[in-house]
Protein backbone atom coordinates (compact mmCIF):
# COMPACT_ATOMS: atom_id res chain seq x y z
CA UNK A 1 0.00 0.00 0.00
CA UNK A 2 1.42 3.40 -0.90
CA UNK A 3 0.93 6.65 0.89
CA UNK A 4 -1.47 8.97 -0.95
CA UNK A 5 -0.07 12.14 -2.53
CA UNK A 6 -2.13 14.32 -0.23
CA UNK A 7 -1.26 12.47 2.98
CA UNK A 8 -0.05 15.06 5.52
CA UNK A 9 3.14 13.10 6.27
CA UNK A 10 4.05 13.11 2.60
CA UNK A 11 3.18 16.80 2.18
CA UNK A 12 5.24 17.80 5.19
CA UNK A 13 8.12 15.52 4.22
CA UNK A 14 8.29 17.01 0.71
CA UNK A 15 8.00 20.58 1.85
CA UNK A 16 10.51 20.42 4.69
CA UNK A 17 12.96 18.32 2.69
CA UNK A 18 13.05 20.86 -0.13
CA UNK A 19 13.29 23.85 2.21
CA UNK A 20 15.93 21.94 4.21
CA UNK A 21 18.05 21.59 1.07
CA UNK A 22 18.18 25.39 0.83
CA UNK A 23 18.77 25.97 4.55
CA UNK A 24 22.03 27.46 5.82
CA UNK A 25 22.38 24.62 8.32
CA UNK A 26 22.47 22.04 5.52
CA UNK A 27 25.18 23.97 3.67
CA UNK A 28 27.30 24.15 6.83
CA UNK A 29 26.97 20.44 7.46
CA UNK A 30 27.69 19.70 3.82
CA UNK A 31 31.06 21.39 4.30
CA UNK A 32 31.60 19.45 7.52
CA UNK A 33 30.76 16.16 5.79
CA UNK A 34 33.38 16.93 3.16
CA UNK A 35 36.21 17.25 5.71
CA UNK A 36 36.81 13.47 5.89
CA UNK A 37 36.82 13.33 2.09
CA UNK A 38 39.58 15.93 1.98
CA UNK A 39 41.53 14.05 4.65
CA UNK A 40 41.19 10.82 2.68
CA UNK A 41 42.27 12.49 -0.53
CA UNK A 42 45.26 13.96 1.30
CA UNK A 43 46.18 10.47 2.51
CA UNK A 44 45.94 9.19 -1.07
CA UNK A 45 48.13 12.00 -2.36
CA UNK A 46 50.70 11.21 0.35
CA UNK A 47 50.61 7.58 -0.71
CA UNK A 48 51.08 8.69 -4.31
CA UNK A 49 54.24 10.62 -3.48
CA UNK A 50 55.46 7.75 -1.37
CA UNK A 51 55.26 9.41 2.05
CA UNK A 52 52.96 6.70 3.37
CA UNK A 53 52.27 3.12 2.33
CA UNK A 54 49.00 1.66 0.96
CA UNK A 55 48.61 -0.23 4.24
CA UNK A 56 48.81 3.02 6.15
CA UNK A 57 46.02 4.48 4.02
CA UNK A 58 43.81 1.44 4.60
CA UNK A 59 44.56 1.68 8.31
CA UNK A 60 43.76 5.37 8.29
CA UNK A 61 40.32 4.58 6.90
CA UNK A 62 39.50 1.71 9.25
CA UNK A 63 40.86 3.38 12.37
CA UNK A 64 40.30 7.07 11.97
CA UNK A 65 37.61 7.52 9.33
CA UNK A 66 35.14 5.02 10.75
CA UNK A 67 35.56 6.55 14.16
CA UNK A 68 35.11 10.03 12.72
CA UNK A 69 31.87 9.03 11.02
CA UNK A 70 30.30 6.79 13.63
CA UNK A 71 31.40 8.60 16.77
CA UNK A 72 31.32 12.19 15.60
CA UNK A 73 29.64 13.06 12.31
CA UNK A 74 26.60 10.79 12.50
CA UNK A 75 25.67 11.64 16.13
CA UNK A 76 26.33 15.36 15.62
CA UNK A 77 24.33 15.59 12.39
CA UNK A 78 21.51 13.59 13.96
CA UNK A 79 21.62 15.90 16.98
CA UNK A 80 21.35 19.09 14.97
CA UNK A 81 18.78 17.80 12.47
CA UNK A 82 16.75 15.81 15.02
CA UNK A 83 16.54 18.41 17.75
CA UNK A 84 15.67 21.11 15.21
CA UNK A 85 12.45 19.32 14.23
CA UNK A 86 10.54 20.83 17.14
CA UNK A 87 13.06 23.40 18.42
CA UNK A 88 13.13 25.35 15.14
CA UNK A 89 9.34 25.64 15.25
CA UNK A 90 9.58 27.06 18.77
CA UNK A 91 12.51 29.37 18.11
CA UNK A 92 10.93 30.77 14.94
CA UNK A 93 7.43 30.69 16.47
CA UNK A 94 6.16 28.83 13.40
CA UNK A 95 4.64 25.92 15.31
CA UNK A 96 1.33 27.77 15.28
CA UNK A 97 0.98 27.19 11.53
CA UNK A 98 1.37 23.43 11.84
CA UNK A 99 -0.94 23.17 14.84
CA UNK A 100 -3.83 25.19 13.39
CA UNK A 101 -4.35 22.92 10.40
CA UNK A 102 -6.54 19.80 10.46
CA UNK A 103 -3.54 17.50 10.80
CA UNK A 104 -2.61 15.37 13.79
CA UNK A 105 0.57 16.34 15.56
CA UNK A 106 2.05 12.87 15.00
CA UNK A 107 1.86 13.43 11.23
CA UNK A 108 3.66 16.75 11.63
CA UNK A 109 6.42 15.12 13.63
CA UNK A 110 6.79 12.09 11.37
CA UNK A 111 6.84 14.17 8.18
CA UNK A 112 9.52 16.44 9.57
CA UNK A 113 11.50 13.52 11.04
CA UNK A 114 11.65 11.74 7.68
CA UNK A 115 12.73 14.94 5.93
CA UNK A 116 15.49 15.55 8.51
CA UNK A 117 16.60 11.91 8.33
CA UNK A 118 16.88 11.98 4.54
CA UNK A 119 18.80 15.25 4.59
CA UNK A 120 21.27 13.94 7.17
CA UNK A 121 21.55 10.61 5.33
CA UNK A 122 22.33 12.28 2.01
CA UNK A 123 25.11 14.33 3.61
CA UNK A 124 26.61 11.33 5.35
CA UNK A 125 26.28 8.91 2.46
CA UNK A 126 27.72 11.34 -0.10
CA UNK A 127 30.79 12.02 2.04
CA UNK A 128 31.19 8.42 3.14
CA UNK A 129 30.92 7.11 -0.42
CA UNK A 130 33.65 9.43 -1.64
CA UNK A 131 35.87 8.52 1.31
CA UNK A 132 35.33 4.83 0.78
CA UNK A 133 36.04 5.04 -2.92
CA UNK A 134 39.22 7.00 -2.24
CA UNK A 135 40.31 4.39 0.30
CA UNK A 136 39.46 1.39 -1.88
CA UNK A 137 40.45 2.74 -5.27
CA UNK A 138 42.83 -0.11 -6.01
CA UNK A 139 40.40 -2.84 -4.88
CA UNK A 140 37.21 -1.83 -6.66
CA UNK A 141 37.07 -5.13 -8.56
CA UNK A 142 36.87 -7.07 -5.30
CA UNK A 143 33.30 -8.05 -4.37
CA UNK A 144 34.20 -7.97 -0.68
CA UNK A 145 34.82 -4.23 -0.99
CA UNK A 146 31.25 -3.63 -2.14
CA UNK A 147 29.92 -5.88 0.59
CA UNK A 148 31.84 -3.82 3.09
CA UNK A 149 30.45 -0.62 1.60
CA UNK A 150 26.90 -2.00 1.93
CA UNK A 151 27.59 -2.83 5.56
CA UNK A 152 28.92 0.65 6.30
CA UNK A 153 26.04 2.41 4.57
CA UNK A 154 23.41 0.20 6.20
CA UNK A 155 24.99 0.76 9.61
CA UNK A 156 25.13 4.51 8.93
CA UNK A 157 21.40 4.59 8.17
CA UNK A 158 20.53 2.57 11.25
CA UNK A 159 22.71 4.79 13.44
CA UNK A 160 21.27 7.96 11.92
CA UNK A 161 17.67 6.84 12.37
CA UNK A 162 18.28 5.86 15.99
CA UNK A 163 20.19 8.98 17.00
CA UNK A 164 17.77 11.21 15.07
CA UNK A 165 14.76 9.65 16.79
CA UNK A 166 16.40 10.10 20.19
CA UNK A 167 17.23 13.75 19.55
CA UNK A 168 13.78 14.40 18.07
CA UNK A 169 12.30 13.22 21.37
CA UNK A 170 14.79 15.35 23.30
CA UNK A 171 13.91 18.39 21.17
CA UNK A 172 10.21 17.80 21.71
CA UNK A 173 10.79 17.58 25.46
CA UNK A 174 13.07 20.57 26.06
CA UNK A 175 13.62 23.82 24.25
CA UNK A 176 17.41 23.98 24.45
CA UNK A 177 18.20 20.36 23.75
CA UNK A 178 21.53 20.78 21.95
CA UNK A 179 23.59 20.95 25.17
CA UNK A 180 21.94 17.85 26.60
CA UNK A 181 22.49 16.10 23.28
CA UNK A 182 26.15 17.05 23.22
CA UNK A 183 26.51 15.75 26.76
CA UNK A 184 24.93 12.47 25.66
CA UNK A 185 27.20 12.08 22.63
CA UNK A 186 30.49 13.26 24.09
CA UNK A 187 29.85 12.41 27.72
CA UNK A 188 27.70 9.36 28.20
CA UNK A 189 28.42 7.61 24.90
CA UNK A 190 32.16 8.30 24.97
CA UNK A 191 32.68 7.20 28.54
CA UNK A 192 30.19 4.40 29.12
CA UNK A 193 31.20 2.36 26.08
CA UNK A 194 34.44 1.57 27.85
CA UNK A 195 32.78 0.54 31.12
CA UNK A 196 33.02 -3.14 31.92
CA UNK A 197 29.92 -5.32 32.18
CA UNK A 198 26.67 -4.68 30.39
CA UNK A 199 26.59 -0.90 31.09
CA UNK A 200 27.94 -0.17 27.62
CA UNK A 201 24.78 -1.67 26.15
CA UNK A 202 23.00 1.46 27.36
CA UNK A 203 24.67 3.41 24.59
CA UNK A 204 23.70 3.56 20.94
CA UNK A 205 27.32 3.49 19.84
CA UNK A 206 27.82 0.00 21.30
CA UNK A 207 25.19 -1.46 18.98
CA UNK A 208 26.49 0.53 16.04
CA UNK A 209 30.06 -0.63 16.57
CA UNK A 210 28.88 -4.19 16.96
CA UNK A 211 27.90 -4.11 13.29
CA UNK A 212 31.26 -2.85 12.09
CA UNK A 213 34.35 -4.98 11.43
CA UNK A 214 36.85 -4.68 14.25
CA UNK A 215 40.09 -3.43 12.77
CA UNK A 216 43.33 -5.00 13.79
CA UNK A 217 45.64 -3.17 16.18
CA UNK A 218 45.91 -2.49 19.87
CA UNK A 219 44.94 1.16 19.98
CA UNK A 220 42.00 1.07 17.67
CA UNK A 221 39.26 3.63 18.13
CA UNK A 222 36.80 0.79 17.68
CA UNK A 223 38.31 -1.54 20.25
CA UNK A 224 35.97 -3.08 22.78
CA UNK A 225 36.31 -3.91 26.43
CA UNK A 226 33.73 -6.64 25.85
CA UNK A 227 33.00 -8.68 22.77
CA UNK A 228 30.61 -6.91 20.43
CA UNK A 229 26.99 -8.02 20.49
CA UNK A 230 25.77 -10.32 17.69
CA UNK A 231 24.95 -8.53 14.43
CA UNK A 232 21.30 -9.56 14.24
CA UNK A 233 20.72 -8.57 17.85
CA UNK A 234 22.38 -5.21 17.17
CA UNK A 235 20.20 -4.53 14.13
CA UNK A 236 17.06 -5.42 16.07
CA UNK A 237 18.07 -3.30 19.05
CA UNK A 238 18.81 -0.28 16.83
CA UNK A 239 15.50 -0.68 14.98
CA UNK A 240 13.56 -1.14 18.21
CA UNK A 241 15.31 1.83 19.82
CA UNK A 242 14.51 4.01 16.78
CA UNK A 243 10.85 3.09 17.00
CA UNK A 244 10.79 3.55 20.76
CA UNK A 245 12.41 6.99 20.62
CA UNK A 246 10.10 8.00 17.79
CA UNK A 247 7.09 6.87 19.77
CA UNK A 248 8.39 8.82 22.75
CA UNK A 249 8.83 11.91 20.58
CA UNK A 250 5.25 11.62 19.31
CA UNK A 251 3.96 11.01 22.83
CA UNK A 252 5.63 14.19 24.09
CA UNK A 253 4.77 16.31 21.05
CA UNK A 254 1.10 15.38 21.19
CA UNK A 255 0.73 16.14 24.88
CA UNK A 256 3.11 18.97 25.65
CA UNK A 257 1.78 22.50 25.66
CA UNK A 258 4.28 24.67 23.83
CA UNK A 259 4.11 28.24 25.01
CA UNK A 260 5.54 30.62 22.47
CA UNK A 261 6.60 33.95 23.92
CA UNK A 262 4.54 37.15 23.81
CA UNK A 263 1.75 35.64 25.85
CA UNK A 264 -0.36 38.59 26.79
Amino acid at each position, binding site marked *: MTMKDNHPIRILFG*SFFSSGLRAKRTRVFMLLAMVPVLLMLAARVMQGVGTVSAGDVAGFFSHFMLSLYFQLLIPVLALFFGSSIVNDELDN*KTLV*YLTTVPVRRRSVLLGKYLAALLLAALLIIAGFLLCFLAASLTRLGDAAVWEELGLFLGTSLLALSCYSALFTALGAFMKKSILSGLFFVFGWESVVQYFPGVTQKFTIVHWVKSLLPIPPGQNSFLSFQLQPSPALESVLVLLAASLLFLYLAIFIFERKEYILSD*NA
Partner: protein
Amino acid sequence: MTAVLRAEKLSKWYGNILGISDINLEIGSGITGLLGPNGAGKSTFLKIAAGQLKPKLGALTVFGEAVYGNPRLFRRIGFCPEHDSAYAEMSGRGFILLLARLHGFAGAAAAAKAEKALATVGLLDSQERAIKGYSFGMRQRLRLASSILHEPELLMLDEPLRGVDPVWRIRIMQLIKDYGKLGRTVIVSSHILPEIEAMTNEIVLIHQGKIFAKGDIHRIRGLIDSHPHQVSIRTAQPRQLAARLIGSEFISGIEFAADNRGLTVHTNQRDPFFTALMGLLAESGMEADEITSPDDNLQAVFDYLIGK
Protein backbone atom coordinates in the same frame (compact mmCIF):
# COMPACT_ATOMS: atom_id res chain seq x y z
CA MET B 1 -27.58 34.77 19.49
CA THR B 2 -26.17 31.33 18.67
CA ALA B 3 -22.77 31.19 20.30
CA VAL B 4 -19.96 30.09 18.01
CA LEU B 5 -17.43 30.45 20.80
CA ARG B 6 -18.26 29.92 24.45
CA ALA B 7 -15.91 30.41 27.39
CA GLU B 8 -16.95 29.37 30.89
CA LYS B 9 -14.93 30.32 33.93
CA LEU B 10 -11.87 30.26 31.72
CA SER B 11 -8.54 30.89 33.42
CA LYS B 12 -4.95 30.56 32.33
CA TRP B 13 -1.72 31.50 34.00
CA TYR B 14 1.95 30.91 33.29
CA GLY B 15 3.70 30.03 36.52
CA ASN B 16 2.94 33.01 38.72
CA ILE B 17 1.92 35.22 35.84
CA LEU B 18 -1.78 35.62 35.21
CA GLY B 19 -2.91 35.34 31.60
CA ILE B 20 -6.68 35.45 31.94
CA SER B 21 -8.96 34.89 34.88
CA ASP B 22 -12.50 33.58 35.21
CA ILE B 23 -13.69 34.65 31.77
CA ASN B 24 -17.30 33.97 30.83
CA LEU B 25 -18.03 34.95 27.27
CA GLU B 26 -20.19 34.03 24.31
CA ILE B 27 -19.43 35.24 20.81
CA GLY B 28 -21.76 34.77 17.86
CA SER B 29 -21.56 35.57 14.17
CA GLY B 30 -20.38 38.96 12.93
CA ILE B 31 -17.30 40.89 13.95
CA THR B 32 -16.31 41.20 17.58
CA GLY B 33 -13.48 43.47 18.62
CA LEU B 34 -11.29 42.34 21.49
CA LEU B 35 -9.90 45.53 22.94
CA GLY B 36 -7.39 45.91 25.71
CA PRO B 37 -3.98 47.36 26.48
CA ASN B 38 -0.81 45.34 25.90
CA GLY B 39 -0.59 42.50 28.40
CA ALA B 40 -4.34 42.49 29.03
CA GLY B 41 -4.83 38.84 28.07
CA LYS B 42 -6.14 39.22 24.51
CA SER B 43 -3.51 36.97 22.95
CA THR B 44 -3.85 34.36 25.68
CA PHE B 45 -7.60 34.23 25.11
CA LEU B 46 -7.17 33.90 21.33
CA LYS B 47 -4.45 31.26 21.70
CA ILE B 48 -6.75 29.17 23.86
CA ALA B 49 -9.55 29.67 21.34
CA ALA B 50 -7.15 28.59 18.57
CA GLY B 51 -6.11 25.45 20.43
CA GLN B 52 -2.55 26.66 21.03
CA LEU B 53 -2.86 26.69 24.81
CA LYS B 54 -4.72 24.50 27.28
CA PRO B 55 -7.10 26.22 29.70
CA LYS B 56 -5.87 25.91 33.28
CA LEU B 57 -9.39 26.14 34.67
CA GLY B 58 -12.79 26.28 33.01
CA ALA B 59 -13.57 25.47 29.41
CA LEU B 60 -13.67 26.99 25.99
CA THR B 61 -15.64 25.49 23.13
CA VAL B 62 -15.89 26.44 19.47
CA PHE B 63 -18.90 25.11 17.55
CA GLY B 64 -19.69 23.15 20.70
CA GLU B 65 -16.36 21.28 20.77
CA ALA B 66 -13.21 21.67 22.86
CA VAL B 67 -10.42 23.05 20.68
CA TYR B 68 -7.18 21.81 22.25
CA GLY B 69 -6.05 18.55 20.66
CA ASN B 70 -8.94 18.59 18.20
CA PRO B 71 -7.33 19.15 14.78
CA ARG B 72 -10.57 18.29 12.92
CA LEU B 73 -11.97 21.60 14.10
CA PHE B 74 -9.33 23.56 12.22
CA ARG B 75 -11.16 23.05 8.95
CA ARG B 76 -13.60 25.61 10.38
CA ILE B 77 -11.17 27.92 12.21
CA GLY B 78 -8.63 30.40 10.90
CA PHE B 79 -6.06 32.00 13.20
CA CYS B 80 -3.68 34.83 12.44
CA PRO B 81 -1.05 34.96 15.21
CA GLU B 82 0.35 38.18 16.56
CA HIS B 83 4.05 37.40 16.47
CA ASP B 84 6.17 37.85 13.42
CA SER B 85 6.95 34.28 12.45
CA ALA B 86 7.60 32.64 9.11
CA TYR B 87 9.49 29.88 7.36
CA ALA B 88 12.22 32.17 6.08
CA GLU B 89 13.55 29.79 3.43
CA MET B 90 10.16 29.15 1.83
CA SER B 91 8.61 31.37 -0.80
CA GLY B 92 5.34 33.10 0.02
CA ARG B 93 3.54 30.81 -2.41
CA GLY B 94 5.29 27.71 -1.07
CA PHE B 95 4.18 28.55 2.45
CA ILE B 96 0.54 29.22 1.57
CA LEU B 97 0.41 26.21 -0.77
CA LEU B 98 1.76 23.98 2.02
CA LEU B 99 -1.00 25.16 4.35
CA ALA B 100 -3.64 24.76 1.62
CA ARG B 101 -2.56 21.16 1.09
CA LEU B 102 -2.53 20.51 4.84
CA HIS B 103 -6.08 21.84 4.90
CA GLY B 104 -6.96 19.00 2.57
CA PHE B 105 -6.96 20.74 -0.81
CA ALA B 106 -5.12 18.80 -3.48
CA GLY B 107 -3.49 19.72 -6.78
CA ALA B 108 -5.22 22.50 -8.72
CA ALA B 109 -7.67 23.22 -5.89
CA ALA B 110 -4.80 23.91 -3.49
CA ALA B 111 -3.07 26.13 -6.05
CA ALA B 112 -6.31 28.05 -6.65
CA LYS B 113 -6.87 28.55 -2.90
CA ALA B 114 -3.30 29.75 -2.43
CA GLU B 115 -3.53 32.14 -5.38
CA LYS B 116 -6.81 33.58 -4.16
CA ALA B 117 -5.48 34.13 -0.62
CA LEU B 118 -2.28 35.74 -1.91
CA ALA B 119 -4.25 37.97 -4.28
CA THR B 120 -6.52 39.05 -1.42
CA VAL B 121 -3.55 40.34 0.57
CA GLY B 122 -1.75 41.76 -2.46
CA LEU B 123 1.21 39.38 -2.51
CA LEU B 124 0.78 37.75 -5.92
CA ASP B 125 3.61 39.77 -7.44
CA SER B 126 6.06 38.69 -4.75
CA GLN B 127 4.78 35.16 -4.22
CA GLU B 128 7.88 33.45 -5.61
CA ARG B 129 10.28 35.41 -3.39
CA ALA B 130 11.66 33.82 -0.23
CA ILE B 131 9.82 35.06 2.86
CA LYS B 132 13.11 36.20 4.39
CA GLY B 133 13.10 38.98 1.77
CA TYR B 134 9.64 40.25 2.77
CA SER B 135 9.10 43.42 4.75
CA PHE B 136 7.39 43.28 8.14
CA GLY B 137 4.12 44.48 6.62
CA MET B 138 4.30 41.86 3.86
CA ARG B 139 4.87 39.10 6.41
CA GLN B 140 1.87 40.39 8.37
CA ARG B 141 -0.26 40.18 5.21
CA LEU B 142 1.11 36.69 4.53
CA ARG B 143 -0.03 35.62 8.01
CA LEU B 144 -3.44 37.00 7.21
CA ALA B 145 -3.48 35.00 3.95
CA SER B 146 -2.60 31.85 5.92
CA SER B 147 -5.65 32.35 8.12
CA ILE B 148 -8.21 33.00 5.38
CA LEU B 149 -7.12 30.64 2.62
CA HIS B 150 -9.56 27.88 3.63
CA GLU B 151 -12.39 30.40 4.17
CA PRO B 152 -13.05 29.45 7.79
CA GLU B 153 -16.36 29.97 9.56
CA LEU B 154 -14.51 31.42 12.56
CA LEU B 155 -11.63 33.77 11.86
CA MET B 156 -9.48 34.99 14.75
CA LEU B 157 -7.01 37.78 14.10
CA ASP B 158 -4.53 38.85 16.75
CA GLU B 159 -3.46 42.45 16.10
CA PRO B 160 -3.77 42.04 12.31
CA LEU B 161 -3.02 45.69 11.53
CA ARG B 162 0.28 45.87 13.40
CA GLY B 163 3.06 47.04 11.09
CA VAL B 164 0.84 47.31 8.03
CA ASP B 165 1.16 50.43 5.86
CA PRO B 166 -1.78 52.89 5.78
CA VAL B 167 -3.11 51.75 2.40
CA TRP B 168 -3.21 48.11 3.42
CA ARG B 169 -4.55 49.03 6.85
CA ILE B 170 -7.69 50.35 5.17
CA ARG B 171 -7.89 47.38 2.79
CA ILE B 172 -7.52 44.85 5.59
CA MET B 173 -10.17 46.59 7.66
CA GLN B 174 -12.49 46.43 4.64
CA LEU B 175 -11.61 42.78 4.11
CA ILE B 176 -12.51 42.00 7.72
CA LYS B 177 -15.78 43.91 7.42
CA ASP B 178 -16.66 42.05 4.20
CA TYR B 179 -15.86 38.76 5.89
CA GLY B 180 -18.20 39.62 8.74
CA LYS B 181 -20.96 40.53 6.29
CA LEU B 182 -20.86 36.97 4.91
CA GLY B 183 -22.39 35.83 8.18
CA ARG B 184 -19.14 34.37 9.46
CA THR B 185 -17.63 35.02 12.86
CA VAL B 186 -14.59 37.25 13.15
CA ILE B 187 -12.76 38.05 16.37
CA VAL B 188 -10.18 40.76 15.95
CA SER B 189 -7.93 42.00 18.73
CA SER B 190 -6.27 45.36 19.07
CA HIS B 191 -5.10 47.81 21.68
CA ILE B 192 -6.11 50.73 19.49
CA LEU B 193 -9.72 51.80 19.90
CA PRO B 194 -10.16 53.60 16.55
CA GLU B 195 -8.99 50.45 14.72
CA ILE B 196 -11.70 48.38 16.35
CA GLU B 197 -14.21 51.19 15.97
CA ALA B 198 -13.62 51.24 12.23
CA MET B 199 -14.52 47.56 11.91
CA THR B 200 -17.30 46.80 14.35
CA ASN B 201 -19.75 48.04 16.94
CA GLU B 202 -19.51 44.86 19.01
CA ILE B 203 -16.68 45.08 21.46
CA VAL B 204 -15.22 43.15 24.39
CA LEU B 205 -13.00 45.09 26.75
CA ILE B 206 -10.34 42.99 28.40
CA HIS B 207 -8.03 44.21 31.11
CA GLN B 208 -5.70 42.45 33.54
CA GLY B 209 -6.97 39.10 32.32
CA LYS B 210 -10.64 39.83 32.95
CA ILE B 211 -13.54 40.82 30.74
CA PHE B 212 -14.21 44.34 31.81
CA ALA B 213 -17.17 45.22 29.60
CA LYS B 214 -18.94 43.77 26.62
CA GLY B 215 -21.43 45.26 24.24
CA ASP B 216 -22.03 48.05 21.82
CA ILE B 217 -19.03 50.29 21.22
CA HIS B 218 -21.11 53.48 21.56
CA ARG B 219 -21.92 52.69 25.18
CA ILE B 220 -18.27 52.03 25.89
CA ARG B 221 -17.27 55.11 23.93
CA GLY B 222 -19.54 57.07 26.25
CA LEU B 223 -17.67 55.74 29.27
CA ILE B 224 -14.37 56.58 27.68
CA ASP B 225 -15.46 60.05 26.62
CA SER B 226 -16.48 60.95 30.17
CA HIS B 227 -12.97 60.08 31.31
CA PRO B 228 -11.07 63.27 32.29
CA HIS B 229 -8.52 63.88 29.58
CA GLN B 230 -5.37 65.93 29.52
CA VAL B 231 -4.30 67.69 26.36
CA SER B 232 -0.81 69.15 26.08
CA ILE B 233 -0.27 71.99 23.64
CA ARG B 234 3.22 73.22 22.75
CA THR B 235 3.06 76.87 21.67
CA ALA B 236 5.13 80.04 21.87
CA GLN B 237 2.11 81.91 23.28
CA PRO B 238 0.84 79.72 26.14
CA ARG B 239 -0.62 82.56 28.20
CA GLN B 240 -2.49 84.14 25.30
CA LEU B 241 -3.92 80.76 24.39
CA ALA B 242 -4.90 80.06 28.01
CA ALA B 243 -6.69 83.42 28.18
CA ARG B 244 -8.79 82.47 25.16
CA LEU B 245 -9.49 78.96 26.47
CA ILE B 246 -10.30 79.74 30.08
CA GLY B 247 -13.88 80.71 29.45
CA SER B 248 -14.66 77.49 27.60
CA GLU B 249 -17.29 75.26 29.21
CA PHE B 250 -15.27 72.15 28.26
CA ILE B 251 -12.28 72.98 30.44
CA SER B 252 -11.85 72.03 34.06
CA GLY B 253 -8.28 73.28 34.53
CA ILE B 254 -5.11 74.58 32.91
CA GLU B 255 -1.46 74.12 33.90
CA PHE B 256 1.51 75.88 32.34
CA ALA B 257 4.64 74.02 31.33
CA ALA B 258 7.76 74.71 33.42
CA ASP B 259 9.64 75.99 30.34
CA ASN B 260 6.80 78.40 29.55
CA ARG B 261 6.54 76.88 26.07
CA GLY B 262 3.22 75.13 26.50
CA LEU B 263 0.22 74.29 28.62
CA THR B 264 -1.79 71.28 29.67
CA VAL B 265 -5.57 71.50 29.57
CA HIS B 266 -7.89 69.26 31.62
CA THR B 267 -11.24 68.43 30.04
CA ASN B 268 -14.10 66.02 30.57
CA GLN B 269 -15.37 66.45 27.03
CA ARG B 270 -12.50 65.61 24.80
CA ASP B 271 -14.11 65.70 21.37
CA PRO B 272 -15.98 69.03 21.82
CA PHE B 273 -12.81 70.49 23.32
CA PHE B 274 -10.74 69.50 20.30
CA THR B 275 -13.34 71.04 17.98
CA ALA B 276 -13.30 74.27 19.99
CA LEU B 277 -9.48 74.33 20.14
CA MET B 278 -9.10 73.91 16.37
CA GLY B 279 -11.62 76.70 15.77
CA LEU B 280 -9.83 79.00 18.20
CA LEU B 281 -6.42 78.40 16.65
CA ALA B 282 -7.77 79.03 13.17
CA GLU B 283 -9.60 82.17 14.23
CA SER B 284 -6.80 83.71 16.32
CA GLY B 285 -3.91 82.81 14.05
CA MET B 286 -1.96 81.43 17.02
CA GLU B 287 0.34 78.54 16.18
CA ALA B 288 0.52 75.26 18.05
CA ASP B 289 3.74 73.31 17.48
CA GLU B 290 2.34 70.09 18.90
CA ILE B 291 -0.90 68.86 20.40
CA THR B 292 -0.77 65.60 22.33
CA SER B 293 -3.02 63.83 24.74
CA PRO B 294 -0.74 62.08 27.23
CA ASP B 295 -3.44 59.91 28.68
CA ASP B 296 -5.17 59.24 25.40
CA ASN B 297 -4.21 55.61 25.46
CA LEU B 298 -6.13 52.60 26.43
CA GLN B 299 -4.20 51.92 29.61
CA ALA B 300 -5.14 55.33 31.05
CA VAL B 301 -8.76 54.85 30.07
CA PHE B 302 -8.87 51.43 31.66
CA ASP B 303 -7.22 52.73 34.81
CA TYR B 304 -9.89 55.40 34.97
CA LEU B 305 -12.74 52.97 34.32
CA ILE B 306 -11.64 50.57 37.03
CA GLY B 307 -11.18 53.47 39.44
CA LYS B 308 -7.42 53.34 39.87
